[in-house]
């Protein structure tokens, strides 16, 4: 196998292929990246039985072949190569990489033992790349990072006629958003897929600059899979098994008690006031017609207080919120103003959740349907 390839294109392709590989694998062969000559160019693949990544790039192929080489090592080498064409030559289990005056010799791994990558067929369609990336970043923040309940470590994708909804929760908050979906298969039945949040976030970042992303889901079979592809790149992931909790019903139908604030001001004030808080402690938010007062009763040594402008509709309200959970929601609305709505509850031991939505001006709701529902803490005094 012999080929020559542009340094930047090669480095980018290798880094894409290895990005989703696990940090430690018990099967060393899966830490490799497979490089094949194909259609006058190169095809790079990685696969660890859960996630696969594949891309094709242009190259001057002098001799056809296939080789398997340690992915992370190759990615590190590729990213540090000088600015010159990269030459690959294989010789009996050894791979010679030459670039300018730099030379590397790498060991190859047995290609025969490498598993073949999954091919996903099923319900398919497409979404806008940038829109998808934004929606993933807004929603995935609410996914659980705790392994206690594996189903909520994923982002639930629900595909309807013309919309793709993304939902995530860690039981303390729920984030949900839908984006337009272009159906491309014969069936229009609703289908859902639970994708690991970490993988989906990486996919969002990788494909965010693509015009459109094609999505295919195969469910109901032995292995349930989802595939995302854009331009010459494809990522597949196993779906998480299990039923996602029915969190949509937690959202209130109507709210008549809410406040609108400037998003940036509220983020700044929350960060400032929470400086004196102990870890895991909550901030007290008092909404009155005169504005919103944030109070932190930190330790015995320090307290803090700040008031920001707020436009309140309905009665005065006091809630106690964990600053980080609030900041996650405020940072995800992507609008100049933000609306915090208060829901009623009959349970005296559990305050009603607050709903965070975007607002383009004081009295104009935002353009997207992003909703972030957060459970306040009990008021302690």
């Amino acid at each position, binding site marked *: 196998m012999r080929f020559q390839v542009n340094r930047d294109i090669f480095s980018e392709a290798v880094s894409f292929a290895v990005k989703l590989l696990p940090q430690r694998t018990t099967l060393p062969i899966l830490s490799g990246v497979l490089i094949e000559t194909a259609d006058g160019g190169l095809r790079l693949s990685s696969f660890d039985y859960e996630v696969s990544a594949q891309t094709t790039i242009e190259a001057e192929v002098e001799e056809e072949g296939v080789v398997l080489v340690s992915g992370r090592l190759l990615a590190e080498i590729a990213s540090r190569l000088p600015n010159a064409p990269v030459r690959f030559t294989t010789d009996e289990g050894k791979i010679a990489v030459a670039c300018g005056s730099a030379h590397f010799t790498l060991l190859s791994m047995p290609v025969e033992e490498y598993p073949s990558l999954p091919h996903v067929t099923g319900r398919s369609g497409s979404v806008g790349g940038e829109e998808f990336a934004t929606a993933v970043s807004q929603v995935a923040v609410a996914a659980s990072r705790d392994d*206690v*309940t594996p189903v909520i470590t994923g982002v639930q994708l629900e595909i309807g006629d013309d919309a793709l909804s993304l939902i995530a929760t860690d039981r*303390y908050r729920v984030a949900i958003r839908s984006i337009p979906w272009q159906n491309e298969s014969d069936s229009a039945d609703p289908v859902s897929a639970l994708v690991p949040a970490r993988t989906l976030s990486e996919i969002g970042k990788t494909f965010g600059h693509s015009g459109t992303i094609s999505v295919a889901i195969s469910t109901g079979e032995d292995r349930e899979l989802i595939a995302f592809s854009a331009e010459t790149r494809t990522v597949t992931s196993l779906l998480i098994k299990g039923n996602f909790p029915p969190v949509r019903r*937690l959202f209130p139908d109507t709210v008549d008690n809410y406040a609108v604030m400037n998003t940036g001001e509220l983020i700044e004030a929350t960060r400032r006031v929470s400086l004196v808080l102990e870890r895991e402690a909550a901030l007290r938010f008092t909404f009155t017609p005169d504005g919103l007062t944030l109070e932190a009763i930190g330790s015995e040594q320090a307290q803090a207080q700040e008031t920001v402008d707020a436009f309140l509709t309905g009665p005065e309200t006091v809630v106690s919120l964990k600053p980080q959970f609030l900041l996650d929601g405020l940072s995800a609305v992507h609008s100049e103003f933000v609306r915090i709505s208060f829901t009623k509850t009959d349970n005296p*031991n559990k305050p009603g959740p607050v709903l965070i939505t975007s607002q383009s001006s004081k009295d104009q709701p935002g353009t997207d349907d992003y909703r972030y529902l957060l459970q306040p803490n009990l008021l302690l005094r």
Partner: protein
Amino acid sequence: MHSGPGAEPRSVKPPSVPRTEWVTPGRESALAWEIVRLVIARCSVDYAGRLSAHLPLATRLILLKADGSVLVHSDSLSYKPLNWMSPPCTLSRMEPDPEQAEAGVTEIWRVSHAKTADMLVVSIHEILHDSSHELGVDPGLRKDGVEADLQRLLAEQIELLGEGYQLVRREHMTAIGPVDILARDPNGASVAVEIKRRGEIDGVEQLTRYLELMNRDPLLAPVSGVFAAQEIRPQARTLAEDRGIRCVVLDYDAMRGLDDSSRLF
């Protein structure tokens, strides 16, 4: 050593009462004791045998256990004794020779191991405290409270492993010890569950040994494994999953029914 019926555990007896027979001066003989004796003394200690060690003169706690072992503790350096002799061993008391007496030694205890030539020599300068206690029969080491509770709760809520799981029994006995829970999956196949508070590599190894043994039993095989813990270390998880053992993280508070009011659901 077993205390008979009516024996009072933890009763304190004056130092003169122990059934320890001290040798008459000038002679040495083996001693046996059936109670725990605590001595605080200014002493120096020498160990001779497979390794040599010397502890200079200082005040120390000398523990003479009913099983025959002798342990020398200081008030620091964590839980380990500074020096010790494990059973079987014999303790003999000797009078100091004139040179030692000159240096302030009042008596010498020599602890000899019965099977090796190892010897622990305690040179006593002054005894500050000496008491003996009969501890009675020990109930044995009990499983940590949380771990036992987790086992009980998981047995009651076996569906946490998945829909359709059924409990067979807790503490299923194997030749090398009890498996925490034996259950059946929805297809009726056996599942062995090992429960830990913190899931570490040694817990995975333990479950692996059980699984290997249980899979030899034609009535149980095939047996799959579940490693359940409140928290599972990444290395332990990797090892378990590589061996086909499923990892389940347990939420102790939720299992106990403690409601977290800061949760939505």
